[in-house]
């Protein structure tokens, strides 16, 4: 059976990357599929690599790009599903209750005048560490861009917007010194969700390290 050489494989990979298939895990699978199709075509129809590649891509490029979109959609669904599963666990309720209890006790012992300013910083806690770690991973360690990890940004953005809204909302209660239960609930929700998002991030990274060992090592 005819096999493509390294240069041919790299050519396919570059072509797909230039066609906006950014994520390494998606591109790797597409490259293998396209290469296998081309090897088969070259074997049965004859012709050189570039001719066969051009012929194949003319009729299949739209399918390959559509597959990329579907893969991204699948990565988003998978992340949200993980979050939903974690949210429905009993341990999450225990963590939420614990944070709520500690926050409420803490709020009744401190001077709350300056708390509103600190609350405004809470949303940053969710997104800044992720951005720092991701930029370091890409630029310093030159790690490939994986769909599952990069799409986590979607979850972080939802978290950021939600936390921002909740902090603004709880700020009114802090200002009026009327109801610290609500403020404690807000802190507990933000704390619990942040811990879950961190847990999901670590699990996804661990999974990629296991499944794509030969790509990252």
């Amino acid at each position: 059976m005819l096999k493509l050489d390294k240069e041919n494989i790299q050519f396919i990979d570059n072509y797909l990357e230039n066609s906006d298939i950014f994520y390494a895990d998606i591109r790797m699978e597409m490259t293998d599929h396209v290469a296998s199709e081309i090897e088969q075509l070259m074997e049965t129809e004859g012709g050189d690599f570039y001719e066969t590649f051009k012929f194949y891509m003319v009729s299949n490029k739209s399918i390959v790009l559509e597959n990329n979109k579907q893969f991204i959609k699948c990565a988003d669904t998978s992340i949200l599903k993980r979050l939903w599963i974690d949210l429905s666990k009993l341990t999450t309720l225990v963590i939420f209750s614990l944070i709520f209890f500690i926050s409420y006790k803490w709020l009744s012992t401190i001077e709350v005048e300056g708390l509103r300013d600190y609350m405004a910083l809470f949303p940053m806690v969710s997104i800044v560490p992720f951005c720092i770690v991701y930029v370091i991973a890409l630029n310093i360690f030159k790690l490939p861009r994986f769909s599952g990890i990069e799409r986590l940004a979607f979850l972080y953005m939802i978290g950021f917007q939600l936390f921002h809204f909740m902090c603004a909302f709880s700020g009114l209660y802090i200002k009026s010194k009327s109801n610290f239960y609500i403020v404690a609930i807000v802190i507990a929700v933000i704390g619990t969700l942040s811990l879950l998002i961190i847990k999901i991030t670590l699990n996804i990274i661990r999974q990629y390290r296991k499944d794509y060992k030969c790509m990252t090592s």
Partner: protein
Amino acid sequence: MKLAHFVIFLDENLLPNSFMHKNIMYIWSMANSKLYKGSLVTIILKLLNESDKMYGYEITQKVKELTKGELKITEGALYPALHKLEAEGLLEVEVKKVDNRLRKYYKLTEKGSKETVSKLHELQEYIKTMQVLVNPKLSLE
């Protein structure tokens, strides 16, 4: 009605005799039809159940070979289905370097093996029902 061979994936022992006819299972020609889309997941699970692990292109070729070209799975249908099954925890992946490139192999998880049995049973029941509807004589045999 055109005969197709794609149900040869199914365990013949699990099917009633009425489905056997000249060693070919009856099913409607589903190539290029919306009908086969609902069975795609079952086909994938069944193939993976029969081998240790498979990669995407291998699955398309295996289906083509088993159905003698009657049924062709496009990558546009196959990969989203594989990724969905992976996200649902029915498949696990393994990446290996083969022929100058990286190849993603899929294999069934324990949950996936259980789901395969259930999906196959579901499909067999569906075929049985359809058989009764479209060919009552044969179903009475």
